[in-house]
């Protein structure tokens, strides 16, 4: 699993990557009450706003971690946003994307580097 400084995690699944927010980010945000997912097929560039989430406290944008295409979204979050708080790196995944340059993954943080970031 790889991480971004924006507190997202990415995990390779075949030629796709699964993207979500980290347990640390979910804890900081508090209980999520709303998730607005992107349309499947959307082409995104790194740092585009792709997901809107709202917690009990405030609204936040989730940015595209890398360039690519959104190929699947976790529709279950629409009705049960708190899945993100309960299982941020499992059932709380947000979308799957096909990366324009799969090797971009290599430039992201590994788990140790991410742990150091939030320490």
């Amino acid at each position, binding site marked *: 699993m790889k991480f971004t400084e924006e507190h997202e995690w990415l995990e390779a699944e075949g030629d796709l990557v699964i993207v979500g927010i980290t347990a640390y980010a979910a804890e900081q945000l*508090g*209980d999520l*009450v*709303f998730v*607005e997912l992107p349309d499947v097929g959307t082409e995104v560039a790194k740092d585009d706003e792709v997901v*809107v989430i*709202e917690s*009990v*406290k*405030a*609204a936040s944008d989730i940015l595209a971690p890398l360039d690519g295409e959104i190929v699947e979204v976790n529709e279950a979050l*629409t009705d049960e*946003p*708190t899945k993100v*708080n309960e299982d941020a790196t499992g059932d709380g995944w947000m979308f799957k994307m096909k990366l324009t340059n799969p090797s971009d993954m290599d430039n992201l943080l590994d788990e140790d580097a991410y742990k150091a970031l939030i320490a």
Partner: protein
Amino acid sequence: MSGDKQTSLHGLHVELGAKMVPFAGYDMPVQYPMGVLKEHLHCRAAAGLFDVSHMGQVLIRPKSGDVADAARALETLVPVDVLGLGEGRQRYGFFTNEAGGIEDDLMIANRGDHLFLVVNAACKDADFAHMQAGLGADCDLEMIEGRSLLALQGPAAEGALASLVPAATDMKFMDVAVLDWNGCELWISRSGYTGEDGYEISVPDGQAEELARALLALEAVEPIGLGARDSLRLEAGLCLYGNDIDSDTSPTEAALNWAIQKVRRTDGARAGGFPGADRILAELAGGAARKRVGLRPEGRAPMRGGTILFADETSTTPIGEVTSGGFGPTIQGPMSMGYVTAENATIGNTIYAELRGKRMAATLTKMPFTPANFKR
């Protein structure tokens, strides 16, 4: 660390794992490990304990010794029937200004030979100065130091408090009483700000933690932070001073006419005689140009404070603004309150909010969003 003040329960909050935030000059718990959603639901299902010690507690003692003189004096600052408030009873009120706006909202209790007030934390110093100037000639005022304030709210609150203080059961909604607990004097009111039955309990600082621990030791009681306090009061349709009412909002605009008794209105025995009476009395009779309303957004996206409201999907002239909004855990959906122009303020009306560049529909809804559960 911040320079924020701490309540006498600060150490307990930290021990319980609370996330602390600055609020009105105090370092307060916004949530405990349970989290805002579960805390909210727990309070509606059982009982929640809140630390509201940051709020101001004020005693008004009449120099004459006759509480009616204190009541008459306070009536010069609030458009409320204080003289008619019976001994051992409490009622909601607000300080008004010369422009007819609301300077703060508060609870007023008649305790036999004096009045006891609870005012908002952020306003307490200004309120005290305002009262000193207005009432100082007839009354001695005291801002209570050395007492904490706890709120115990929810359907299990009565059973919980009665296990420590049996006489609490005999109190009805808006009763106040001084009751003994382990030799210490508790000033209790049967009220709160969640829409649930419950109590507010003023306790000496030295016994506050012991009382909190005794309540938290009960199966039904969990500690609740400011986050859930906000969603509970919003579901209950209650105003947060500084968000939903402020020095520019009049009582009629704020849909608080119910808090101004007939005796203080035009043709009442003690009509007027409070700051801003000209405007406030005129609006009581003829209405105001805008009105506070409840909103239920379609879909799940919350419409938060500051969101601009429109009559339809295309018009460019706003009709109002959201003042508080969020997710209602009990109603399982978003809810807001805000102000719209009087001609758009009909319950059932669909209006539109501009949310992230899109117009989203919302229905004007009667408040409270959840039925109140008071013990009348």
